[in-house]
């Protein structure tokens, strides 16, 4: 119960941070996806059902503040959590580099899907801006992830 509450508060804090991310820290208008990192880092310490609930809550919270009506982030976060869970047995919780690579790959995939969804909805996004959003926000997400790894490790301890 205590862990549930801790994770709930962490999700609220991360959502607040992501929504009010300071403009000077947004490189080329890109900001890190803190809510994506959280369920992926929880995978290494908690059971899958707990992670799944956290992933759905994080995804829905992100969707709540997006213009799109569908809960696409809730779905994507759950899928990424599941795939990371399958991989987690082969990765050491101390190996930050591998976890960082996983976050980078997942952030790239997540951004590709969101970008494609936007394009398929008929939106016009120039190639330069598409690639900029794809790579910079994914790299930024991966760069910030060690901080959230530390936080989840502390909660799990």
């Amino acid at each position, binding site marked *: 119960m205590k862990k549930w509450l801790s994770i709930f508060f962490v999700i609220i804090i991360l959502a607040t941070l992501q*929504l009010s991310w300071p403009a000077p820290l947004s490189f080329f208008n890109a900001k890190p996806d803190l809510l994506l990192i959280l369920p992926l880092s929880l995978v290494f310490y908690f059971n899958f059902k707990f992670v799944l609930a956290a992933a759905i809550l994080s995804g829905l919270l992100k969707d709540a503040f997006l213009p799109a009506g569908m809960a696409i982030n809730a779905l994507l976060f759950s899928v990424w959590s599941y795939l990371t869970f399958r991989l987690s047995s082969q990765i050491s919780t101390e190996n930050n580099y591998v976890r960082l690579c996983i976050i980078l790959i997942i952030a790239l995939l997540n951004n590709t899907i969101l970008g494609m969804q936007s394009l398929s909805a008929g*939106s016009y996004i120039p190639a330069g801006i598409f690639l900029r959003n794809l790579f910079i926000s994914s790299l930024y997400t991966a760069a910030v992830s060690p901080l959230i790894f530390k936080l989840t490790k502390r909660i799990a301890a």
Partner: protein
Amino acid sequence: MFKLSRKTLINFIFIACAVFLVSLFSPFFKNSAQKTLKPQLTFIGALKRECVGIIFYHRNMVELARLGNETDNLRRKLFDLREVAQENARLKSLLGFKQKSPYRLVAARVIARSPDSWSSSVIIDKGRYSGIKRGMAVINTQGLVGRVIESADNSSKVLLINDPGQGVSSIVQRSRQEGLVSGSLGANLIMRYLPDEAQIAVGDIIITSELSQVYPKGLLVGKVVNIGKEFSGLSRYAVVKPAAQLSGIEEVLVIIP
């Protein structure tokens, strides 16, 4: 590693069902999520404003002196224009023109921005209780900002004009050439569907057209900074710099018709 076992399949079905059920209740969730996060977001916004004020004290002091001079000039101009406006109203009433009713404006503060880079929206601190409804146009002192796409009790979501899903029917102020201004997630907007012979040049002012069902006619959208030819070669496009500085927007005005 990813062999689809029975357990895996059950897990996937569990995920799909959970997400489906949750997305079914998403509108209720959205409303309560916005309500829950509003106090924190308002507090952080205020804290950020204070910090920026302290950090950029000298810059603000210089800016204040410059704005003071500008205000004096504008006040003089306003006085002259008020005379012209009164004369205009008198002449219009003499000619029997129907007077346009002035809009009611509701001032609101931006408390949150879009959580990802694929959309451009903001959350404002006024909602249904202040008379704000879906579809209302949002401006600021510089020009058009966007439109309300969702309104909760005490907050609303505004889709900015640089969102790729946004389209504003606009005209060139000088030549009355029509086109559709849409966002591209970048700093500039794109005015499309301009015929080859369109009367448009760099520096032209773009305003909203009366064809727009959402935006009142004559709102300042931006200024043309570049003109190019579409890939098909059949029409031209214009790159428009928005009048409102969308990346650092803090206060907005919602137009209540």
